[in-house]
Protein backbone atom coordinates (compact mmCIF):
# COMPACT_ATOMS: atom_id res chain seq x y z
CA UNK A 1 0.00 0.00 0.00
CA UNK A 2 2.78 2.33 0.94
CA UNK A 3 4.53 1.53 -2.29
CA UNK A 4 1.35 2.12 -4.27
CA UNK A 5 0.92 5.52 -2.64
CA UNK A 6 4.49 6.41 -3.38
CA UNK A 7 4.09 5.54 -7.03
CA UNK A 8 0.78 7.38 -7.22
CA UNK A 9 2.06 10.55 -5.60
CA UNK A 10 5.27 10.49 -7.61
CA UNK A 11 3.15 10.11 -10.75
CA UNK A 12 0.81 12.94 -9.83
CA UNK A 13 3.70 15.25 -9.16
CA UNK A 14 5.39 14.44 -12.44
CA UNK A 15 2.01 15.01 -14.06
CA UNK A 16 2.14 18.57 -12.81
CA UNK A 17 5.21 19.04 -14.97
CA UNK A 18 3.30 17.85 -18.04
CA UNK A 19 0.45 20.12 -17.14
CA UNK A 20 2.78 23.11 -17.13
CA UNK A 21 3.64 22.49 -20.78
CA UNK A 22 0.05 21.70 -21.72
CA UNK A 23 -1.08 25.02 -20.24
CA UNK A 24 0.83 26.96 -22.86
CA UNK A 25 -0.93 25.04 -25.63
CA UNK A 26 -4.33 25.64 -24.09
CA UNK A 27 -3.84 29.37 -23.78
CA UNK A 28 -3.00 29.88 -27.42
CA UNK A 29 -5.49 27.37 -28.72
CA UNK A 30 -8.27 28.93 -26.68
CA UNK A 31 -7.66 32.47 -27.81
CA UNK A 32 -6.75 31.99 -31.44
CA UNK A 33 -7.66 28.45 -32.39
CA UNK A 34 -4.07 27.79 -33.34
CA UNK A 35 -2.44 24.58 -32.25
CA UNK A 36 0.98 25.93 -31.39
CA UNK A 37 3.42 23.20 -32.23
CA UNK A 38 6.26 25.48 -31.17
CA UNK A 39 5.30 25.40 -27.48
CA UNK A 40 7.93 22.75 -26.76
CA UNK A 41 10.54 24.77 -28.58
CA UNK A 42 9.49 27.78 -26.54
CA UNK A 43 10.08 25.81 -23.35
CA UNK A 44 13.56 25.03 -24.66
CA UNK A 45 14.18 28.64 -25.64
CA UNK A 46 13.10 29.87 -22.21
CA UNK A 47 15.30 27.43 -20.30
CA UNK A 48 18.18 28.15 -22.62
CA UNK A 49 17.86 31.90 -22.16
CA UNK A 50 17.99 31.47 -18.40
CA UNK A 51 21.18 29.38 -18.41
CA UNK A 52 22.60 31.54 -21.21
CA UNK A 53 22.15 34.71 -19.21
CA UNK A 54 23.55 33.04 -16.11
CA UNK A 55 26.65 31.98 -18.00
CA UNK A 56 27.15 35.58 -19.03
CA UNK A 57 27.29 36.42 -15.34
CA UNK A 58 23.74 37.33 -14.43
CA UNK A 59 22.38 36.09 -11.09
CA UNK A 60 19.43 33.69 -11.22
CA UNK A 61 16.72 36.28 -10.54
CA UNK A 62 18.04 38.61 -13.21
CA UNK A 63 18.39 35.75 -15.67
CA UNK A 64 14.76 34.84 -15.10
CA UNK A 65 13.66 38.41 -15.68
CA UNK A 66 15.75 38.64 -18.84
CA UNK A 67 14.33 35.36 -20.06
CA UNK A 68 10.86 36.68 -19.39
CA UNK A 69 11.62 39.75 -21.49
CA UNK A 70 13.00 37.55 -24.28
CA UNK A 71 9.92 35.31 -24.23
CA UNK A 72 7.54 38.26 -24.28
CA UNK A 73 9.35 39.91 -27.17
CA UNK A 74 9.41 36.60 -28.95
CA UNK A 75 5.66 36.22 -28.48
CA UNK A 76 4.92 39.68 -29.79
CA UNK A 77 7.25 39.19 -32.75
CA UNK A 78 5.57 35.90 -33.60
CA UNK A 79 2.20 37.58 -33.67
CA UNK A 80 3.47 40.49 -35.72
CA UNK A 81 5.59 38.71 -38.29
CA UNK A 82 3.97 35.31 -38.60
CA UNK A 83 0.38 35.15 -37.46
CA UNK A 84 -0.78 38.57 -38.57
CA UNK A 85 0.14 37.71 -42.13
CA UNK A 86 -1.91 34.55 -41.91
CA UNK A 87 -5.19 35.93 -40.65
CA UNK A 88 -8.11 34.30 -42.47
CA UNK A 89 -6.00 31.39 -43.64
CA UNK A 90 -7.18 27.87 -42.88
CA UNK A 91 -6.07 26.42 -39.52
CA UNK A 92 -3.73 23.98 -41.21
CA UNK A 93 -1.69 26.88 -42.61
CA UNK A 94 -1.33 28.33 -39.14
CA UNK A 95 -0.40 24.94 -37.76
CA UNK A 96 2.29 24.55 -40.41
CA UNK A 97 3.56 28.01 -39.56
CA UNK A 98 4.01 26.99 -35.93
CA UNK A 99 5.93 23.89 -37.01
CA UNK A 100 8.22 26.15 -38.99
CA UNK A 101 8.51 28.38 -35.98
CA UNK A 102 9.51 25.40 -33.83
CA UNK A 103 12.37 24.51 -36.17
CA UNK A 104 13.39 28.14 -36.36
CA UNK A 105 13.70 28.36 -32.58
CA UNK A 106 15.43 25.02 -32.32
CA UNK A 107 18.03 26.27 -34.75
CA UNK A 108 18.42 29.81 -33.55
CA UNK A 109 18.40 29.39 -29.78
CA UNK A 110 21.47 27.10 -29.56
CA UNK A 111 23.33 29.46 -31.92
CA UNK A 112 22.82 32.30 -29.47
CA UNK A 113 23.18 30.46 -26.17
CA UNK A 114 25.21 27.36 -27.02
CA UNK A 115 23.93 23.87 -27.62
CA UNK A 116 25.68 21.67 -25.04
CA UNK A 117 23.47 20.30 -22.26
CA UNK A 118 23.83 22.23 -19.04
CA UNK A 119 22.49 21.99 -15.53
CA UNK A 120 20.13 24.61 -14.21
CA UNK A 121 20.31 25.09 -10.48
CA UNK A 122 17.30 26.77 -8.95
CA UNK A 123 18.55 26.14 -5.44
CA UNK A 124 15.84 23.56 -4.73
CA UNK A 125 17.12 20.10 -3.97
CA UNK A 126 15.62 17.10 -5.68
CA UNK A 127 15.65 14.97 -2.54
CA UNK A 128 13.04 13.20 -0.44
CA UNK A 129 11.59 15.28 2.35
CA UNK A 130 12.82 13.66 5.58
CA UNK A 131 9.72 14.51 7.64
CA UNK A 132 7.39 12.72 5.25
CA UNK A 133 9.81 9.85 4.84
CA UNK A 134 9.95 9.36 8.58
CA UNK A 135 6.25 9.73 9.24
CA UNK A 136 4.76 7.65 6.41
CA UNK A 137 7.75 6.06 4.78
CA UNK A 138 6.90 7.63 1.42
CA UNK A 139 9.50 9.26 -0.79
CA UNK A 140 8.34 12.66 -1.97
CA UNK A 141 10.83 14.97 -3.59
CA UNK A 142 10.98 18.51 -2.33
CA UNK A 143 11.50 19.69 -5.87
CA UNK A 144 8.31 17.99 -7.03
CA UNK A 145 6.35 19.66 -4.27
CA UNK A 146 7.73 23.08 -5.18
CA UNK A 147 6.88 22.44 -8.83
CA UNK A 148 3.33 21.52 -7.84
CA UNK A 149 3.06 24.67 -5.74
CA UNK A 150 4.29 26.82 -8.61
CA UNK A 151 1.86 25.20 -11.01
CA UNK A 152 -1.03 25.72 -8.60
CA UNK A 153 -0.11 29.37 -8.20
CA UNK A 154 0.20 29.84 -11.93
CA UNK A 155 -3.14 28.25 -12.67
CA UNK A 156 -4.92 30.22 -9.96
CA UNK A 157 -3.46 33.47 -11.24
CA UNK A 158 -4.43 32.67 -14.81
CA UNK A 159 -7.93 31.65 -13.80
CA UNK A 160 -8.45 34.88 -11.86
CA UNK A 161 -6.99 36.89 -14.72
CA UNK A 162 -9.33 35.28 -17.25
CA UNK A 163 -12.36 35.62 -15.03
CA UNK A 164 -12.14 39.08 -13.60
CA UNK A 165 -10.05 41.43 -15.71
CA UNK A 166 -10.97 43.44 -18.76
CA UNK A 167 -8.25 41.86 -20.86
CA UNK A 168 -9.12 38.40 -19.56
CA UNK A 169 -12.75 38.82 -20.57
CA UNK A 170 -11.67 40.09 -23.96
CA UNK A 171 -9.46 37.03 -24.37
CA UNK A 172 -12.38 34.73 -23.71
CA UNK A 173 -14.58 36.78 -26.01
CA UNK A 174 -12.06 36.47 -28.83
CA UNK A 175 -11.86 32.75 -28.20
CA UNK A 176 -15.62 32.47 -28.56
CA UNK A 177 -16.20 34.55 -31.66
CA UNK A 178 -13.50 36.45 -33.56
CA UNK A 179 -15.91 38.34 -35.76
CA UNK A 180 -18.11 39.53 -32.96
CA UNK A 181 -15.08 40.55 -30.92
CA UNK A 182 -13.81 42.54 -33.86
CA UNK A 183 -17.20 44.18 -34.32
CA UNK A 184 -17.28 45.57 -30.80
CA UNK A 185 -13.83 47.03 -31.22
CA UNK A 186 -11.57 44.47 -29.57
CA UNK A 187 -8.29 44.67 -31.48
CA UNK A 188 -7.53 41.04 -32.25
CA UNK A 189 -3.85 41.70 -32.85
CA UNK A 190 -3.29 43.11 -29.36
CA UNK A 191 -5.14 40.24 -27.83
CA UNK A 192 -3.09 37.69 -29.74
CA UNK A 193 0.14 39.41 -28.82
CA UNK A 194 -0.90 39.29 -25.17
CA UNK A 195 -1.78 35.61 -25.42
CA UNK A 196 1.57 34.78 -26.98
CA UNK A 197 3.26 36.79 -24.27
CA UNK A 198 1.44 34.81 -21.59
CA UNK A 199 2.20 31.53 -23.35
CA UNK A 200 5.84 32.61 -23.37
CA UNK A 201 5.67 33.18 -19.63
CA UNK A 202 4.13 29.77 -19.06
CA UNK A 203 6.86 28.27 -21.24
CA UNK A 204 9.40 30.01 -19.04
CA UNK A 205 7.97 28.47 -15.88
CA UNK A 206 7.87 25.06 -17.54
CA UNK A 207 11.39 25.56 -18.86
CA UNK A 208 12.70 26.40 -15.39
CA UNK A 209 11.14 23.33 -13.87
CA UNK A 210 12.04 20.89 -16.64
CA UNK A 211 15.47 22.40 -17.07
CA UNK A 212 16.23 22.05 -13.39
CA UNK A 213 15.03 18.47 -13.38
CA UNK A 214 16.50 17.07 -16.61
CA UNK A 215 19.14 19.61 -17.50
CA UNK A 216 18.80 22.22 -20.20
CA UNK A 217 19.15 20.29 -23.43
CA UNK A 218 17.61 19.82 -26.80
CA UNK A 219 15.38 17.03 -25.51
CA UNK A 220 13.29 19.70 -23.77
CA UNK A 221 11.58 20.35 -27.08
CA UNK A 222 10.04 16.88 -26.86
CA UNK A 223 8.11 17.83 -23.75
CA UNK A 224 5.60 19.14 -26.27
CA UNK A 225 4.89 15.61 -27.39
CA UNK A 226 4.17 14.54 -23.81
CA UNK A 227 1.70 17.39 -23.55
CA UNK A 228 -0.39 16.07 -26.44
CA UNK A 229 -2.13 13.23 -24.59
CA UNK A 230 -2.62 15.61 -21.68
CA UNK A 231 -4.47 17.97 -23.99
CA UNK A 232 -6.58 15.26 -25.53
CA UNK A 233 -7.65 14.00 -22.13
CA UNK A 234 -8.13 17.38 -20.48
CA UNK A 235 -9.57 19.17 -23.47
CA UNK A 236 -7.82 21.66 -25.70
CA UNK A 237 -9.70 24.65 -24.38
CA UNK A 238 -9.66 24.19 -20.65
CA UNK A 239 -7.06 25.45 -18.19
CA UNK A 240 -8.26 23.18 -15.38
CA UNK A 241 -8.42 20.43 -17.99
CA UNK A 242 -4.72 20.79 -18.64
CA UNK A 243 -4.03 20.30 -14.95
CA UNK A 244 -6.35 17.35 -14.45
CA UNK A 245 -5.14 15.80 -17.70
CA UNK A 246 -1.55 16.21 -16.58
CA UNK A 247 -2.25 14.59 -13.23
CA UNK A 248 -4.11 11.72 -14.87
CA UNK A 249 -1.34 11.08 -17.35
CA UNK A 250 1.38 11.34 -14.74
CA UNK A 251 -0.31 9.01 -12.28
CA UNK A 252 -1.53 6.46 -14.81
CA UNK A 253 1.75 6.14 -16.67
CA UNK A 254 3.69 5.53 -13.47
CA UNK A 255 1.14 3.03 -12.17
CA UNK A 256 1.06 1.29 -15.54
CA UNK A 257 4.82 1.09 -15.58
CA UNK A 258 4.88 -0.67 -12.22
CA UNK A 259 1.75 -2.80 -12.26
CA UNK A 260 1.10 -3.65 -15.88
CA UNK A 261 4.21 -5.64 -16.88
CA UNK A 262 3.55 -8.61 -14.55
CA UNK A 263 -0.03 -8.88 -15.85
CA UNK A 264 1.08 -8.61 -19.47
CA UNK A 265 3.84 -11.09 -18.89
CA UNK A 266 1.53 -13.69 -17.45
CA UNK A 267 -0.84 -13.20 -20.37
CA UNK A 268 1.53 -13.06 -23.31
CA UNK A 269 4.93 -13.93 -21.93
CA UNK A 270 7.94 -11.91 -22.96
CA UNK A 271 9.29 -8.72 -21.52
CA UNK A 272 7.23 -5.56 -21.10
CA UNK A 273 9.40 -2.69 -20.09
CA UNK A 274 9.00 0.99 -20.96
CA UNK A 275 5.22 1.00 -20.80
CA UNK A 276 5.54 4.51 -19.44
CA UNK A 277 6.62 5.65 -22.87
CA UNK A 278 3.50 4.71 -24.78
CA UNK A 279 0.78 4.29 -22.18
CA UNK A 280 -0.34 7.95 -22.25
CA UNK A 281 -0.92 7.76 -25.98
CA UNK A 282 -3.06 4.68 -25.67
CA UNK A 283 -5.06 6.46 -23.01
CA UNK A 284 -5.41 9.46 -25.31
CA UNK A 285 -6.60 7.24 -28.15
CA UNK A 286 -9.19 5.76 -25.86
CA UNK A 287 -10.39 9.24 -24.92
CA UNK A 288 -10.60 10.27 -28.56
CA UNK A 289 -12.98 7.38 -29.09
CA UNK A 290 -15.28 7.96 -26.15
CA UNK A 291 -15.00 11.65 -25.36
CA UNK A 292 -13.29 13.57 -28.14
CA UNK A 293 -13.72 17.00 -26.55
CA UNK A 294 -11.78 15.81 -23.51
CA UNK A 295 -12.88 15.89 -19.89
CA UNK A 296 -13.23 19.65 -19.64
CA UNK A 297 -13.23 20.73 -23.26
CA UNK A 298 -15.84 23.24 -24.25
CA UNK A 299 -18.78 21.62 -25.81
CA UNK A 300 -20.16 23.40 -28.77
CA UNK A 301 -23.31 25.08 -27.51
CA UNK A 302 -26.09 24.36 -29.95
CA UNK A 303 -29.54 25.73 -29.56
CA UNK A 304 -32.25 23.59 -31.01
Amino acid sequence: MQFFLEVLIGGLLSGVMYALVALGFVLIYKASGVFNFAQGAMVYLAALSVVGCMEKGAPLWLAIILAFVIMTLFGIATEKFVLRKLVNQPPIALFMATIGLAFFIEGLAPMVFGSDPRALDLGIVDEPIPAILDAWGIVISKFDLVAAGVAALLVTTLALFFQYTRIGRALRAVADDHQAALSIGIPLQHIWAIVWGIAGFVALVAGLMWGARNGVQFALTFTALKALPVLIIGGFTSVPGAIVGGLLIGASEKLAEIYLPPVMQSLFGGNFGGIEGWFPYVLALFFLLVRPEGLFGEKHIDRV
Partner: protein
Amino acid sequence: MTVATAPTEAAPAVESYLTVNNIEVIYDHVILVLKGVSLNVPKGKIVALLGANGAGKTTTLKAISNLLRAERGDVTKGSVEFKGRRVDQLSPNELVKRGVIQVMEGRHCFAHLTLEENLLTGAYTRSISRGELKQSLEKVYHYFPRLKTRRGSQAGYTSGGEQQMCVIGRALMARPEMILLDEPSMGLAPQIVEEIFEIVKGLNGQENVSFLLAEQNTMMALRYADFGYILENGRVVMEGGAEGLRTNEDVKEFYLGISSSGRKSFKDIKHYRRRKRWLS
Protein backbone atom coordinates in the same frame (compact mmCIF):
# COMPACT_ATOMS: atom_id res chain seq x y z
CA MET B 1 -24.16 56.26 -60.17
CA THR B 2 -27.27 55.16 -58.40
CA VAL B 3 -30.52 56.15 -59.88
CA ALA B 4 -33.43 56.76 -57.60
CA THR B 5 -36.26 55.55 -59.72
CA ALA B 6 -39.11 56.76 -57.62
CA PRO B 7 -38.16 59.44 -55.15
CA THR B 8 -41.38 59.58 -53.23
CA GLU B 9 -40.04 62.39 -51.12
CA ALA B 10 -36.99 64.60 -51.19
CA ALA B 11 -33.90 62.59 -50.28
CA PRO B 12 -32.72 63.15 -46.71
CA ALA B 13 -30.40 66.06 -47.41
CA VAL B 14 -30.00 67.16 -43.83
CA GLU B 15 -26.53 67.99 -42.43
CA SER B 16 -24.19 65.15 -43.24
CA TYR B 17 -23.55 62.76 -40.38
CA LEU B 18 -22.90 59.34 -41.80
CA THR B 19 -22.44 59.59 -45.54
CA VAL B 20 -21.71 56.74 -47.87
CA ASN B 21 -20.54 57.93 -51.27
CA ASN B 22 -20.94 55.62 -54.19
CA ILE B 23 -19.10 52.64 -52.75
CA GLU B 24 -18.24 49.55 -54.72
CA VAL B 25 -17.38 46.33 -52.91
CA ILE B 26 -15.58 43.36 -54.38
CA TYR B 27 -15.16 40.07 -52.55
CA ASP B 28 -12.15 37.89 -53.21
CA HIS B 29 -11.01 40.26 -55.95
CA VAL B 30 -13.66 38.99 -58.35
CA ILE B 31 -17.18 39.08 -56.98
CA LEU B 32 -18.74 42.48 -57.39
CA VAL B 33 -21.35 42.85 -54.68
CA LEU B 34 -22.05 46.55 -54.34
CA LYS B 35 -22.20 48.53 -57.55
CA GLY B 36 -22.14 52.05 -56.27
CA VAL B 37 -24.24 52.56 -53.17
CA SER B 38 -24.77 56.01 -51.71
CA LEU B 39 -26.72 56.79 -48.63
CA ASN B 40 -27.06 59.24 -45.84
CA VAL B 41 -27.94 58.88 -42.19
CA PRO B 42 -28.83 62.16 -40.52
CA LYS B 43 -28.07 62.65 -36.86
CA GLY B 44 -30.60 61.20 -34.47
CA LYS B 45 -32.59 59.37 -37.13
CA ILE B 46 -33.37 55.77 -37.90
CA VAL B 47 -32.67 54.84 -41.49
CA ALA B 48 -33.83 51.53 -42.86
CA LEU B 49 -31.91 49.62 -45.49
CA LEU B 50 -34.30 47.26 -47.18
CA GLY B 51 -34.12 44.60 -49.80
CA ALA B 52 -34.28 40.91 -50.50
CA ASN B 53 -31.69 38.27 -49.70
CA GLY B 54 -28.36 38.98 -51.32
CA ALA B 55 -29.25 42.54 -52.24
CA GLY B 56 -26.20 43.85 -50.40
CA LYS B 57 -27.61 45.11 -47.11
CA THR B 58 -25.14 43.31 -44.89
CA THR B 59 -22.25 44.12 -47.20
CA THR B 60 -23.14 47.80 -47.05
CA LEU B 61 -23.13 47.74 -43.25
CA LYS B 62 -19.86 45.85 -43.13
CA ALA B 63 -18.30 48.23 -45.61
CA ILE B 64 -19.14 51.06 -43.24
CA SER B 65 -17.94 49.27 -40.10
CA ASN B 66 -14.81 47.99 -41.86
CA LEU B 67 -15.50 44.39 -40.99
CA LEU B 68 -15.28 43.49 -44.66
CA ARG B 69 -11.56 43.08 -44.73
CA ALA B 70 -11.79 40.17 -42.32
CA GLU B 71 -13.92 38.44 -44.95
CA ARG B 72 -11.73 39.18 -47.94
CA GLY B 73 -14.01 41.95 -49.07
CA ASP B 74 -12.67 45.24 -50.28
CA VAL B 75 -14.15 48.67 -50.80
CA THR B 76 -12.67 49.47 -54.19
CA LYS B 77 -14.40 52.75 -54.96
CA GLY B 78 -16.14 55.50 -53.10
CA SER B 79 -15.81 56.72 -49.56
CA VAL B 80 -17.47 56.65 -46.17
CA GLU B 81 -17.58 59.74 -43.99
CA PHE B 82 -18.65 60.11 -40.42
CA LYS B 83 -19.11 63.60 -39.04
CA GLY B 84 -17.25 65.05 -42.00
CA ARG B 85 -14.18 62.82 -41.72
CA ARG B 86 -13.33 59.85 -43.85
CA VAL B 87 -13.48 56.62 -41.90
CA ASP B 88 -13.03 53.96 -44.57
CA GLN B 89 -9.41 53.28 -43.68
CA LEU B 90 -9.95 52.96 -39.92
CA SER B 91 -9.77 49.67 -38.08
CA PRO B 92 -13.01 48.55 -36.44
CA ASN B 93 -11.38 49.35 -33.10
CA GLU B 94 -10.80 53.00 -34.02
CA LEU B 95 -14.22 53.26 -35.57
CA VAL B 96 -15.90 52.02 -32.39
CA LYS B 97 -13.92 54.62 -30.45
CA ARG B 98 -15.30 57.28 -32.79
CA GLY B 99 -18.81 56.12 -32.06
CA VAL B 100 -19.83 53.82 -34.90
CA ILE B 101 -20.51 50.21 -34.00
CA GLN B 102 -22.07 47.33 -35.84
CA VAL B 103 -24.41 44.75 -34.40
CA MET B 104 -23.98 41.81 -36.71
CA GLU B 105 -26.81 39.65 -37.93
CA GLY B 106 -27.27 36.24 -36.44
CA ARG B 107 -26.87 37.25 -32.80
CA HIS B 108 -23.17 36.80 -32.30
CA CYS B 109 -23.08 36.49 -28.52
CA PHE B 110 -20.02 35.15 -26.81
CA ALA B 111 -21.68 31.83 -26.09
CA HIS B 112 -19.50 30.75 -23.18
CA LEU B 113 -19.60 34.08 -21.38
CA THR B 114 -22.50 35.05 -19.16
CA LEU B 115 -24.87 37.75 -20.37
CA GLU B 116 -23.31 40.23 -17.97
CA GLU B 117 -19.79 39.36 -19.13
CA ASN B 118 -20.96 39.82 -22.70
CA LEU B 119 -22.12 43.29 -21.84
CA LEU B 120 -18.89 44.09 -20.02
CA THR B 121 -16.77 43.17 -23.03
CA GLY B 122 -18.75 45.77 -24.96
CA ALA B 123 -17.01 48.48 -22.96
CA TYR B 124 -13.57 47.25 -24.02
CA THR B 125 -12.73 50.34 -26.05
CA ARG B 126 -13.57 52.71 -23.21
CA SER B 127 -11.01 53.13 -20.48
CA ILE B 128 -13.34 53.74 -17.60
CA SER B 129 -13.49 53.20 -13.87
CA ARG B 130 -15.40 50.43 -12.18
CA GLY B 131 -18.07 52.92 -11.13
CA GLU B 132 -18.68 54.16 -14.64
CA LEU B 133 -18.76 50.60 -15.90
CA LYS B 134 -21.40 49.78 -13.33
CA GLN B 135 -23.38 52.83 -14.42
CA SER B 136 -23.29 51.86 -18.08
CA LEU B 137 -24.37 48.37 -17.13
CA GLU B 138 -27.33 49.69 -15.18
CA LYS B 139 -28.33 51.84 -18.13
CA VAL B 140 -28.37 48.83 -20.44
CA TYR B 141 -30.37 46.90 -17.85
CA HIS B 142 -32.79 49.80 -17.74
CA TYR B 143 -33.54 49.34 -21.42
CA PHE B 144 -33.35 45.56 -21.33
CA PRO B 145 -34.76 44.48 -17.95
CA ARG B 146 -34.85 40.87 -19.21
CA LEU B 147 -31.07 40.81 -19.42
CA LYS B 148 -30.80 41.76 -15.79
CA THR B 149 -32.90 38.85 -14.60
CA ARG B 150 -30.74 36.44 -16.61
CA ARG B 151 -27.40 38.19 -16.13
CA GLY B 152 -25.64 35.09 -14.76
CA SER B 153 -26.64 32.66 -17.53
CA GLN B 154 -24.25 31.62 -20.24
CA ALA B 155 -25.30 33.50 -23.33
CA GLY B 156 -25.30 30.35 -25.44
CA TYR B 157 -28.16 28.95 -23.40
CA THR B 158 -30.44 31.99 -23.50
CA SER B 159 -33.34 32.47 -25.90
CA GLY B 160 -33.03 34.08 -29.31
CA GLY B 161 -34.69 37.27 -28.15
CA GLU B 162 -32.42 37.53 -25.15
CA GLN B 163 -29.40 37.00 -27.38
CA GLN B 164 -30.54 39.76 -29.71
CA MET B 165 -31.00 42.05 -26.72
CA CYS B 166 -27.60 40.99 -25.45
CA VAL B 167 -25.79 42.00 -28.63
CA ILE B 168 -27.59 45.33 -28.86
CA GLY B 169 -26.89 45.95 -25.18
CA ARG B 170 -23.28 44.98 -25.68
CA ALA B 171 -22.96 47.53 -28.46
CA LEU B 172 -24.54 50.16 -26.20
CA MET B 173 -21.80 49.57 -23.63
CA ALA B 174 -19.35 51.17 -26.06
CA ARG B 175 -21.52 54.28 -25.86
CA PRO B 176 -21.97 54.65 -29.61
CA GLU B 177 -23.51 57.54 -31.48
CA MET B 178 -24.40 55.39 -34.42
CA ILE B 179 -25.40 51.73 -34.46
CA LEU B 180 -25.39 49.68 -37.64
CA LEU B 181 -28.03 47.14 -36.79
CA ASP B 182 -28.19 44.13 -39.06
CA GLU B 183 -31.41 42.18 -39.26
CA PRO B 184 -32.52 42.26 -35.62
CA SER B 185 -35.77 40.47 -36.45
CA MET B 186 -34.14 37.39 -37.94
CA GLY B 187 -35.72 34.20 -36.65
CA LEU B 188 -37.58 35.83 -33.78
CA ALA B 189 -41.22 35.69 -32.79
CA PRO B 190 -43.20 38.75 -33.98
CA GLN B 191 -43.87 39.81 -30.41
CA ILE B 192 -40.17 39.82 -29.56
CA VAL B 193 -39.39 41.67 -32.78
CA GLU B 194 -41.88 44.32 -31.77
CA GLU B 195 -40.31 44.56 -28.32
CA ILE B 196 -36.86 44.99 -29.79
CA PHE B 197 -37.96 47.65 -32.26
CA GLU B 198 -39.66 49.53 -29.44
CA ILE B 199 -36.39 49.52 -27.51
CA VAL B 200 -34.51 50.70 -30.60
CA LYS B 201 -36.97 53.55 -30.96
CA GLY B 202 -36.53 54.36 -27.28
CA LEU B 203 -32.75 54.41 -27.56
CA ASN B 204 -33.04 56.61 -30.59
CA GLY B 205 -35.27 59.08 -28.83
CA GLN B 206 -33.75 59.13 -25.35
CA GLU B 207 -30.08 58.37 -25.92
CA ASN B 208 -29.92 60.13 -29.28
CA VAL B 209 -28.35 57.12 -30.96
CA SER B 210 -28.73 57.08 -34.74
CA PHE B 211 -29.47 53.78 -36.43
CA LEU B 212 -28.81 52.33 -39.82
CA LEU B 213 -31.05 49.32 -39.85
CA ALA B 214 -30.82 46.51 -42.38
CA GLU B 215 -34.05 44.56 -42.47
CA GLN B 216 -36.02 42.11 -44.51
CA ASN B 217 -39.09 42.77 -42.45
CA THR B 218 -39.98 45.79 -44.56
CA MET B 219 -43.29 46.56 -42.90
CA MET B 220 -41.85 46.58 -39.41
CA ALA B 221 -38.75 48.53 -40.37
CA LEU B 222 -40.69 51.25 -42.15
CA ARG B 223 -42.98 51.65 -39.17
CA TYR B 224 -40.07 52.61 -36.95
CA ALA B 225 -37.67 54.26 -39.40
CA ASP B 226 -37.54 57.85 -40.55
CA PHE B 227 -36.04 57.18 -43.96
CA GLY B 228 -35.60 54.15 -46.10
CA TYR B 229 -33.40 52.91 -48.90
CA ILE B 230 -34.24 49.92 -51.00
CA LEU B 231 -31.37 47.87 -52.37
CA GLU B 232 -31.54 45.46 -55.23
CA ASN B 233 -28.58 43.66 -56.73
CA GLY B 234 -26.07 45.93 -55.07
CA ARG B 235 -27.74 49.16 -56.09
CA VAL B 236 -30.10 51.59 -54.42
CA VAL B 237 -33.27 51.42 -56.45
CA MET B 238 -35.49 53.58 -54.32
CA GLU B 239 -35.15 55.95 -51.42
CA GLY B 240 -37.24 58.37 -49.45
CA GLY B 241 -39.13 59.06 -46.25
CA ALA B 242 -40.48 56.01 -44.48
CA GLU B 243 -44.06 57.22 -44.70
CA GLY B 244 -43.75 57.77 -48.43
CA LEU B 245 -42.16 54.39 -49.02
CA ARG B 246 -44.82 52.66 -46.99
CA THR B 247 -47.56 54.09 -49.17
CA ASN B 248 -45.64 53.74 -52.41
CA GLU B 249 -47.48 51.38 -54.74
CA ASP B 250 -44.34 49.59 -55.96
CA VAL B 251 -43.01 48.98 -52.48
CA LYS B 252 -46.37 47.78 -51.38
CA GLU B 253 -46.47 45.33 -54.19
CA PHE B 254 -42.89 44.09 -54.14
CA TYR B 255 -42.22 43.89 -50.47
CA LEU B 256 -45.46 43.98 -48.62
CA GLY B 257 -47.51 41.88 -50.98
CA ILE B 258 -50.34 44.39 -51.07
CA SER B 259 -51.63 45.83 -54.31
CA SER B 260 -54.27 48.42 -55.05
CA SER B 261 -55.26 46.65 -58.23
CA GLY B 262 -56.47 43.61 -56.39
CA ARG B 263 -54.68 40.28 -56.09
CA LYS B 264 -52.02 39.50 -58.62
CA SER B 265 -50.57 36.17 -59.46
CA PHE B 266 -47.02 35.55 -58.33
CA LYS B 267 -45.93 35.20 -61.93
CA ASP B 268 -47.02 38.72 -62.78
CA ILE B 269 -45.33 40.20 -59.78
CA LYS B 270 -42.10 38.54 -60.64
CA HIS B 271 -42.28 39.77 -64.17
CA TYR B 272 -43.08 43.28 -63.09
CA ARG B 273 -40.19 43.25 -60.68
CA ARG B 274 -37.74 42.06 -63.26
CA ARG B 275 -38.76 44.79 -65.66
CA LYS B 276 -38.43 47.33 -62.92
CA ARG B 277 -34.93 46.21 -62.16
CA TRP B 278 -33.87 46.73 -65.75
CA LEU B 279 -35.05 50.29 -65.52
CA SER B 280 -32.69 51.12 -62.72
